[in-house]
């Protein structure tokens, strides 16, 4: 086999090119404002984006099966609001149990998504859009438009307050588990198989329906977990929390090289994508760009990344054709 040139390697490995983008980003920001690279600052990038990091893992699985889940932040709000209210009305204050309850709510929400998409053959975006409305509405209904304030969740918020190790531990464990599962277990490979070619997967004996249901259940589980974490980190629960943030999660996956048509993407890429989004939002104020430029820049970067990807793929194909002709 011929040795690959550096350019070829970069255009074929999304992770490698993302690492380079990341290094350039860090160097530029670090030169303008050295305090950006301090430990506290980097720690805060992870803390501020814990929810995106966590849910991006589930979104990776969903997008690998050529699906999409836009109900995640509603699930998050429903789970978060539920456990917020449990504390507000002094029913339960045990941190561990609250996590379990939030996760179970998430699993139920995700399972409903999965079963309808797999058995009912409903387009994922439509089904999850329906549940996006339902769970968001339910969050408002159960809370009756009230908040659970910092006072209500006082003891619980210690888990996720700035400096506490909780969120980081959850993130690290989640990423290790997903890395192993997606690479080396049967379930992980099945997800890839279903996403690359559903019919082939079906013929080779993979239970496609069960895999799909499993994927959306995992997504729901992570969203529920993120809901609990959100209450803990921001020390409050509102029915409209994280509204519209599902697009951030999708964007993180897209930047990380996860294909929306399924079958392509990796845990490492997802991590890098989420990290780039996190760094951009944290770095802008530190290099003297006002915060209101954030969305514009983020959008341009997303479009630039996906368009660049298309362009490199086109040139690669053209080169391959040329080589064949010679």
């Amino acid at each position, binding site marked *: 086999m011929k040795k690959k040139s550096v350019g070829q390697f970069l255009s074929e490995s999304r992770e490698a090119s993302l690492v380079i983008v990341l290094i350039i980003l860090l160097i530029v920001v670090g030169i303008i404002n050295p305090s950006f690279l301090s430990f506290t600052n980097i720690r805060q990038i992870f803390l501020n984006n814990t929810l995106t990091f966590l849910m991006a893992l589930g979104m990776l699985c969903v997008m690998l099966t050529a699906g*999409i889940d*836009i109900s995640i932040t509603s699930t998050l709000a429903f789970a978060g609001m539920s456990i917020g209210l449990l504390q507000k009305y002094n029913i339960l204050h045990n941190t561990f149990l609250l996590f379990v309850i939030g996760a179970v709510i998430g699993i139920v929400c995700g399972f409903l998504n999965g079963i*309808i998409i797999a058995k*009912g*053959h*409903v*387009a994922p*975006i*439509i*089904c999850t*859009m*329906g*549940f*996006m*409305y*339902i*769970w*968001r*509405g*339910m969050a*408002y*209904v159960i809370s*009756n*438009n009230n908040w659970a304030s910092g006072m209500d969740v006082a003891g619980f918020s210690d888990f996720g307050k700035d400096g506490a190790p909780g969120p980081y531990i959850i993130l690290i464990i989640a990423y290790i588990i997903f890395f192993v599962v997606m690479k080396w277990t049967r379930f992980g490979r099945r997800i890839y198989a279903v996403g690359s070619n559903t019919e082939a997967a079906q013929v080779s004996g993979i239970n496609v329906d069960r895999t799909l249901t499993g994927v959306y259940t995992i997504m729901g589980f992570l969203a529920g977990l993120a809901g609990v974490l959100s209450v803990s980190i921001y020390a409050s629960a509102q*029915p409209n929390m994280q*509204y*519209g943030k599902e*697009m951030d999660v*999708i*964007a993180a996956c*897209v930047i990380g090289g996860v294909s*929306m*048509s399924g079958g392509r993407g990796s845990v490492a890429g997802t991590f890098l994508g989420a990290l780039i989004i996190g760094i951009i939002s944290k770095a802008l104020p530190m290099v003297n760009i*006002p915060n*209101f*430029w*954030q*969305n*514009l*820049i*983020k*959008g*341009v970067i*997303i*479009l630039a990344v*996906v*368009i660049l990807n*298309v362009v490199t*793929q086109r040139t690669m194909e053209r080169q391959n054709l040329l080589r064949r002709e010679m």
Partner: protein
Amino acid sequence: MAGRSGREISAVPETSIKSKLLSWEGALILILVAVNILGVAISPNYNVNNVLREMPRYLAEIFMMFGMGYILVLGDIDISVGALVCLAGTVTVLSSNAGAPFGLAVVICLAAGLLGGMLNGFIATKFTELPTMIVTLGTQIIFRGIAEVLFETWGNGGGTASMTDTKGLMLLAKKIGPFPISFFCVIIAGAIMITVLAKTTFGRKLYAIGSNKTAAYYAGIKVQRIRFICYSLLGFLSGLCALFLLTATFGSNTTTGQGFEMEVIAMCVFGGIATTGGKGNLIGAFIAAFIIVCLRIALGQRNINTQVILVIIGLMLIVSVLVPALSGALTAKKKKAQT
């Protein structure tokens, strides 16, 4: 009309009266009647005048729904329109506050929408490998981002601006009898858009592209040009939506239009348009839109927690897509027997 491949040509209308009554549109009309009966039953203030008075706020979205219907029939999707409404509304308010006469502000509003739509169309047709969901996800963040920057650099900051000179808007918010002007505009726009989709070659081309892009291309249809036109049209209608939304809100802020894209898609899907393309018509979507609007007004008058409407819309959406899927096995069997 099933061809040899067993594929059905969905644009071919079924003609018998019975099948028309049993169609999804027939069911939607029944639901609309039921919603209105429910409205009268639960709220003493639910009458024609009150409903029409509250309508303009919701009517604006219906403009966009027509364009979204075209896009969905093509098999594409556009989730940037909510942000585009925000952008168009913002430039209108800011330019009017900067001294532009109302006529110019209207032109700016529509032009902003059109340009945004053209940008979507340009990227979607030049980079056809990209799913339109990703393209419009990017432009969605960009449009809202531009609006946010404009608020800070051009307006008074704080992410909100209200129109100081509302004379022109008042003119647009006027009523003819009990009907607001926007009601007539929606009906006229609806009549045009429905006819174009159902009766013209352009409409048929959309169905052809939605059913099978490659086949449409080889049949001599300029696929990319038509896609570009549809995106531009949707952008223009977003501008129109922003304009009529202003007649109800007289201002714009960074959250204007948030979630509109999903509401519009929900209306279309509830009305029987499939997101996979090539199926459904705008009449169904039009009725579905009025169902949602009437339901909102009824629940709003009753002072029921307004967010309950979200749960109801979500349930309606899921049931409406599940029913055909569940009865799908049955009809498929029937169709097989016929051929």
